[in-house]
Each structure stands twice: as C-alpha cells, then as structure tokens.
C-alpha cells in the first residue's frame, strides 16, 4: 500500500513538473513572438538568444560589472526616433554557500535601454534613495544635492564632475525624474543607460524606449558642443 502511494506521489509530482515546464516554455515562446512583433513594428533588429559580447563591450557601466555568468538576451538594436539605441535583458548570477557547504546560485535580471551620444561624458549615476544610502549620506557618503529638496531627498546622484551633474539634472530633468521613479540612470563615455528591474515586459518596450528619448531631449545642447 505504501509503495502504491509512493508511486502515485512520484507520478503526481513528475506530472506537475512537466506541466510547469510546458507552461513556462509556451509562455517563453509567446513572449519571444511578442518581442519579434515589436521589433518589426519599430523597425529594429532583434536577437532572441544570449550574447555576452555586448556585456564585454559595455563593461564600463557599473551595472554590467555585477556577478558572474553575465549575458544579454532579447537584444533590440537600431535607430529609434533618430537615436542609436540598444535594449536588452541582462542576466547575472551570484553564489552563496551555507554552513553545510551547499552552494546556491541566485539569478538576477534587469532590462536596460541604452543610447549612444555623439560625445564623451564623465561618469554619472542617478538612482532612488533608500535607507542605506540616506544613512551613508549622513556619514559623508558622496552625493550631490540640488536646489529641489524633493529631488535631492528622492534621488542619489553621484559624479566626480559636479558641474556635469548640475547640467544633466536641470529643472526640467528633475521634474521628469520625479514623475518617473522606476529606473536607475548611468551615463559614462558615450552611453546613456536606463536600468529597470526584472526582465522585459514586451508591452512596456516602447514606453521604456520613449523614456530614454525624452530624457535625452532634456540634455542641454551646449553640453554636446562643449564635449565634441
């Protein structure tokens, strides 16, 4: 009797695992189809597979230095609203070992929208403040404050070049960022990157590329004439 129960349990568990695998495979297929459709609609190139060359090429961006086994997936590239863009899912993993010596792997996903500037700029990062960063600031962790108290309270802005940070975080950009708080910004060399948590939701690709273009439009023209 107990043997029968054991076999029944094994069948049920095995069935459930297979069902989950099939469902996620189908969901992944549907997602890939949606992404292909979006790339066609937007006139962008699309590569559904993994690619680590992009990560190597852009490794100067802090986010792409995290963890191991780093790769890009679902890569869009091309010209969108007159800007050279790149959009992809970014994966990395970290490892922890418990006191019994068992190693666990933790997978992390972000999706990143990037554009290329016609000039090179100093490094600048803008991200939401949290308890740790606020505590750090109280103990002298470097950050740049602006005339908008609300903006300074909401975002942690870091750059070696304070003047550049002021140029980027101008009044209109601060207003824009205060109404769009779900991403980090990284500027370095000739790249402007918006970093979102999790994998790409196909429905939000256009919206996120639009964020990128709108933020690019808020950068004063004189920065490009000065930098070129």
């Amino acid at each position: 009797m107990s043997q029968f129960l054991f076999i029944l349990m094994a069948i049920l568990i095995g069935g459930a695992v297979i069902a989950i695998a099939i469902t996620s495979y189908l969901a992944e297929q549907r997602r890939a189809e949606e992404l292909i459709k979006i790339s066609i609609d937007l006139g962008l190139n699309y590569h559904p597979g993994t690619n680590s060359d992009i990560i190597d090429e852009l490794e100067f961006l802090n986010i792409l230095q995290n963890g191991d086994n780093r790769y890009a997936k679902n890569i869009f590239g091309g010209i969108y609203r007159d800007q050279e863009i790149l959009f992809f899912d970014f994966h990395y993993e970290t490892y922890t070992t418990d006191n019994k010596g068992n190693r666990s792997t933790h997978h992390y996903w972000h999706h990143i929208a990037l554009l290329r500037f016609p000039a090179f700029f100093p490094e600048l990062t803008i991200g939401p403040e949290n308890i740790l960063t606020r505590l750090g600031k109280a103990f002298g962790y470097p950050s740049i404050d602006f005339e908008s108290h609300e903006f300074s309270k909401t975002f942690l802005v870091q750059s070696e070049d304070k003047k550049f940070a002021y140029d980027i975080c101008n009044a209109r950009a601060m207003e824009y960022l205060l109404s769009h708080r779900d991403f980090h910004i990284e500027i370095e060399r000739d790249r402007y990157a918006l970093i979102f948590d999790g994998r790409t939701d196909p429905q939000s690709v256009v919206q996120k590329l639009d964020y990128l273009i709108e933020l690019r439009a808020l950068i004063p023209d004189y920065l490009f004439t000065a930098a070129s």
Partner: protein
Amino acid sequence: MEILLLILVVIIVFPLIYLILQYNGFVSLRNQIAEAWSNIDTELKRRYELIPNLVNTVKGYATHEREVLEHVVQLRNSCMANTGSPAEQIEGENQLTGALKQLLAVAENYPNLKADASYLQLQNELVNTEDRIQAARRFYNGNVRDYRVKFESFPTNLIASTFHFAPEEFLTIDSVVREVPEVKF
C-alpha cells in the same frame, strides 16, 4: 595607562581630526564657489565677444533702432569694466540680458534681418551662451547653498567663525534671452 591614552584620543585626537576635516571642507567649498564663478565669467566673456557682431548685423538692417543698439553697447562696456563682487557684476549682467532681449524683440520686426544667415547664427550662439550662463549661475548657487548650509549649521558654524570664513551670497537668476518679450511700437 591604556585608559588614559583612550581618554586622550577621545578628548584631543578625534576632535582635532573633525576640526581638520571640517576646515578643509570649508576651503574646498569656497574653492568650488570660486571655480563656479570663473565658469560664469568665461561665459560672460563669450557673450561680450558676440555682442559687437550682433549689433553690427542688426545695424545693417534696422537703421532706425540706434537707441536700442547703443544701449546694448553701453551696457556691454560697463559690464566689461565692472570688477566688483559677483553679486555686483551680476546686477549689471542682468540689465545687459534685458537689453539683449529687447534687441532680439526689435529684430523680429525686420523680416530681412531674420532671414540673414549670419544673424541667425549669432542669435543661436547667443541663446546657447545664455543657456550656459544660466546653468553656470545655477551651479554657482548650488555651491553657495552647500557652503551656507555648512556655514550656518552647528557645530560647523563655530569653525567658520573661528577661522573667519566669510558668508557667500546667492546670485539673482534673471530670465533668459530666449524669452523674447513683446514690444509694441
């Protein structure tokens, strides 16, 4: 002995390190303000260089606007000669900005002038320079704000007064040239 040493560290060494850090912080902020002012100064000089060409171009088309043109030239010359404090200099610069706005508004009434390629280029350069001046002033004020926060907060205000750090003034940010006013004749 060890306790005595610990007390000595707490009473003398830590406060001394704090004092040095805060003093250097004041010096650094004061230098940042000076650097920010030199940014503004560079942009103002760029504007001075643009004005003669702009005035000459406008003069070629708008011969009846001598008063406006002379006013701009006069203000430019007095601004160039002004070597007062940043706050004093900015007052004159704000007047010059007002005169330039008026000049651009007058130019709106001369279609041939508006179509002139060199005028358009000068106008673009002027607007671009104005944007830089505004950004540089904002950066200056940002540095002054950081300095004043430190200057007025406790206990750093004690260090400021002990070492005679002087208070710094904000610059008044005037409207920009690109906002051309309506002029009625």
